[in-house]
């Protein structure tokens, strides 16, 4: 295990949670109903909290007075390693729920692995985060059922969302070099992820997912993103970069 693989992997975890948090944060004040505005903001806060833990660890590994904000605010599009799924725009509530479901189910598998992995810091962060992730899985699963088995309109919107986002799920299970170095079993994760989703989709009266039938986009893990990430980062980072070297 090389230190640089560990740094890259930790940044992948951090970037993914931050970017998804940034996206979910766009809902704050604009949710479909007050109670759900509060609910998704809670999830956002969990994600930002996870991102901070991962960035702080990465900063420690890097050393040289590196900080969480240095990593979040001063790296460019090609340096961000988040999964493409996380940066996809919010769209309607169905898109957001589908994205959250895919990602939370994935996080549950991944963090369970980290829990038993060799890196004790990642294991500790995973342990704390898993409690949050289990709740996110529950919350988003319930919404998948409500939308899937709700009205004709919600069913159709959810189908569109799943179609739309499905091609961004594949790369989560294709190991980047740093994951291979760290012996992350992406193939194993993919099986349990798929099983859990299949059960959920059946309950929600949705057609079963299939990992083999569609083309999958890749590149996020190694810094090759969709166009939307650049805008997201530009907005997120601009204050820090306009006033270099300042405290906030």
């Amino acid at each position, binding site marked *: 295990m090389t230190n640089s693989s560990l740094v890259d992997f930790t940044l992948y975890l951090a970037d993914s949670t931050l970017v998804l948090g940034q996206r979910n944060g766009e809902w704050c004040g604009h949710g479909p109903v007050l109670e759900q505005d509060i*609910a998704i903001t809670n999830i956002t806060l969990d994600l930002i909290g996870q991102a901070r833990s991962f960035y702080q660890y990465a900063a420690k590994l890097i050393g040289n007075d590196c900080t969480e904000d240095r990593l979040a605010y001063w790296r460019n599009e090609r340096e961000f390693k988040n999964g493409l799924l996380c940066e996809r725009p919010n769209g309607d509530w169905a898109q957001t729920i589908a994205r959250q479901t895919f990602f939370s189910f994935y996080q549950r598998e991944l963090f369970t692995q980290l829990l038993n992995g060799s890196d004790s810091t990642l294991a500790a962060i995973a342990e704390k985060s898993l409690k949050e992730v289990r709740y996110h899985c529950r919350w988003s699963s*319930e919404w998948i059922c409500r939308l899937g088995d709700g009205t004709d309109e919600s069913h159709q919107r959810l189908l569109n969302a799943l179609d739309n986002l499905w091609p961004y799920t594949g790369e989560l299970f294709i190991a980047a070099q740093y994951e291979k170095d760290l012996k992350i079993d992406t193939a194993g994760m993919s099986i349990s992820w798929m099983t859990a989703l299949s059960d959920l989709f059946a309950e929600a009266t949705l057609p079963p997912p299939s990992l083999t039938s569609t083309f999958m986009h890749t590149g996020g893990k190694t810094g090759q993103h969709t166009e939307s990430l650049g805008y997201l980062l530009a907005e997120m980072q601009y204050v820090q970069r306009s006033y270099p070297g300042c405290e906030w």
Partner: protein
Amino acid sequence: MQLIRKFYYGDIPEETGGAAKPASTSSSSDWPLWEVFIRSKQGLEHKHVGSLHAADANMAIENARDVYTRRSEGISIWVVESKHIKTSNPEASAELYEPAQDKIYRHPTFYDLPDEIKHM
């Protein structure tokens, strides 16, 4: 008669004198109201903390978790749809509650005991 001409924060009069009509019939997108009860820690009873809207009981519990336990205020939640709660009539409060007032012998302080008895 316009009663309030003062303008406080959050008290700007509306031309039509506010919207004081009885509750409108709920439409299909209006979720029912639930009452929320929270146990703040093991050993204490569930206490009413407020209400919220939710489409079903699961959602009501989760909403209650997000709304009423953001600052670790609870470890257990009850929810019940508000329409299932029956309230005693305040106009009957005299006959309901006042008869208890003169039964002071139900309270320990009613009894005079010698000072030597410290705890009883």
